[in-house]
């Protein structure tokens, strides 16, 4: 497979997964502040920390509030990780290999690009953010569902999966880092805590699944265990890393990356959640995931002859 094609597939998947993650994060947090009454303060800054680029944000916007942060995360082209930016980039990448993916996959991205990356001012004006975020999420589901059903299970599929899963693990780890920074503030009211954890779970579409798994109240430790270590949950960190391992098995010259991935996986499998929950451990896992991403790039994409 052409290196350029492999790289493009990898990045299409990352961009679409990132657009979905940002849409989920934005949607849940935006409406959680509304549903939370005065319990939930408008906590917009953590979203900037999670998605990165806080400094770039400050250059463009005076303050982080209910207007500037949603605009930044969803529509701002100065933000390379905004939904609009990532969908545009996914589409540029897809356009460069439209002959390589199925017509249905290309059409899904191209249509989303035309429908979601133009005339975005009306979205905030008309309070239509929820609908917008839903459409972004559906775009991602439709894209990967179409790939599942039409893309050949050759190397291309493996690179697509690698991109999606590395991005997924990265996003979730960064959310956890921020959310688990502030535990221990015991004076917070019960309803607020409940509300907060609900929002975290809903952000990764895990609320209903978590409820099925744990028949107890929303315990921070259980939640972290579920999101980090439950391999039956398709948005968990360990699910992503197992998937990365499986995809690497099917690629040539992957021995070094496989070794790295297996080591990461082994440490996760033998960890208790409370050990991971210290901030340093999360940071370490995040770095390892990004190392795997970098190794994929250097092994397959930047070849000379």
């Amino acid at each position: 497979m052409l290196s350029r094609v492999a790289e493009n597939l990898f990045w299409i998947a990352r961009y679409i997964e990132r657009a979905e993650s940002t849409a989920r994060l934005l949607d849940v947090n935006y409406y959680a502040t509304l549903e939370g009454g005065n319990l939930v303060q408008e906590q917009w800054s953590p979203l900037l920390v999670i998605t990165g680029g806080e400094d770039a944000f400050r250059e463009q916007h005076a303050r982080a509030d209910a207007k500037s942060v949603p605009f930044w995360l969803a529509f701002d082209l100065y933000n390379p990780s905004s939904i609009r930016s990532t969908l545009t980039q996914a589409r540029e990448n897809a356009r460069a290999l439209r002959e390589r993916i199925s017509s249905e996959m290309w059409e899904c991205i191209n249509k989303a690009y035309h429908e979601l990356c133009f005339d975005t001012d009306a979205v905030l004006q008309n309070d239509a953010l929820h609908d917008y975020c839903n459409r972004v999420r559906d775009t991602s589901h439709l894209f990967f569902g179409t790939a599942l059903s039409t893309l050949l299970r050759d190397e291309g599929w493996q690179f697509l999966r690698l991109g999606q899963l590395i991005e997924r693990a990265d996003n979730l780890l960064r959310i956890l880092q921020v959310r688990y920074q502030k535990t221990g503030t015991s004076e917070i009211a019960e309803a607020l805590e409940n509300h907060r954890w609900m929002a975290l779970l809903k952000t990764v579409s895990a609320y209903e699944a978590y409820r099925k798994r744990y028949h107890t109240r929303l315990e921070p430790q259980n939640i972290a265990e579920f999101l980090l270590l439950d391999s039956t949950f398709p948005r968990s960190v360990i699910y992503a890393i197992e998937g990365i391992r499986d995809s690497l098995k099917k690629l040539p010259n992957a021995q070094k990356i496989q070794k790295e991935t297996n080591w990461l996986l082994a440490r996760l499998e033998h960890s208790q959640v409370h050990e991971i929950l210290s901030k340093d451990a999360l940071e370490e896992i995040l770095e390892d995931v990004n190392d795997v991403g970098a190794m994929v790039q250097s092994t397959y994409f930047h070849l000379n002859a």
Partner: protein
Amino acid sequence: MFDHYNPTGFFDEMYDSNNQARVHYQRILERMNGIPKPEFERRRAASDLTFRNQGITFTVYGDSQGTERTFPFDPVPRIIPAAEWAHLERGLTQRVLALNAFLRDIYGEQAILRDNVMPRELVISCSNFRREVFGLKLPLGVYTHIVGSDLVRNERGEYLVLEDNLRTPSGVSYVLANRTALTRTLPGLFAGMNVRPVQHYTTLLLEMLQSLSPRENPTVVVLTPGMYNSAYFEHAFLAQQMGVELVEGRDLFVADNRVWMRTTTGRAQVDVIYRRLDDDFLDPVAFRADSALGVPGLLEVYRQGRVALANAVGAGVADDKAVYAYVPKMIEYYLGEKPILGNVPTLLGWDKDHLEQMLAKPAELVFKAVGEAGGYGMLVGPASTNAEITAYLENVRVNPRNYIAQPVIPLSRHPTYYPDSGKMEACHIDLRPYILCGEKVNIIPGGLTRVALKRGSLVVNSSQGGGSKDTWVLEDDTSSSPTQGGT
């Protein structure tokens, strides 16, 4: 949209008698007036579509397949100030404690009958009185775990309890769905209003249900009559939000003195059943033999304390509409307190004098069958023809115990948007709060505000053309006026 709105004639929730917006409505009124009508209508229509797409529907009985309808959602929220809610919360807690005390007593010592506070014959003649559970010891001593009493406001704005729903009160899913819908439709209304959240209801419900079992991590299920039940959406919604199985009778069976679910890997024990099935249908062995919805042998396991049911079998005796008249007396008898919330004056067919009054001026009264709910079996005197009244009274004379009558309460009204006129019109409303009763009493702020959408109608039930609103309880009463509070 509020042009030409006429608040007079009844107690209006939004406007006072001087036609001035009440202080807790001023801020959202300003905001709603800021939305151009076409945009408002676009959002309302989108919200309708969302209800449809999410399948938030109830089933209308009548045809074999069951027709699904969405419960019309009106985007103008009903607001309850903090102080007003605190009063309601106290009154409801008091009432539900008394009702549980009554149920414990009536299936136990029957002190209230012995002391002649209530007539024995009235109680034991209730169709929902269940001899089968006499003498049982229930977990936490609670009979009615999930309560949905209906509140109305009269012409002076006083809250009165219209009836208690102690068996399988429905509608709480709409409380949660309406809140979500309104945050999607008109997010701008919420800023700085400090509306108290409601979404933790299902967490509280699950914990209450789990507390009914002695086992460590008990298996809770929601038992539904099935997909064609009117409230199926709610059954599924609650099961999903709690993360427990939604089961039908055919998924359960009794063996070895336990209740089990049929699973792909064999049987799995069930500890707590949140049943949304009437007593009659629960167990064809114990009750109606023709019920295909229930679980044969369930009652026996229940009697042995090896499975918990919420609400308890027999709780319906306390929401018999004739027994209802005695709730204020129960409160004084069991708690030694004055009732905080009043009852609607009620004539009992069972009582000779009352019956005479009922038959004398039927055109001024609302008649109700004591065991029915959902607006069925009702006669609204002033809105009925002579022929209808005559036919109804026929039944009352044959079985007077089965009927009560109440004066027509001039229910308070609330501005409500009508898509056909494109205007706000005043509609009668009620309020059904949801009360959870386990180790302690928990009431989520607000409840379901139902709206009588048929113009001029006083009947708010979904089956009778009612709709609903999001109901806000404010955290404090300082943030709602336009000049105070944040943002």
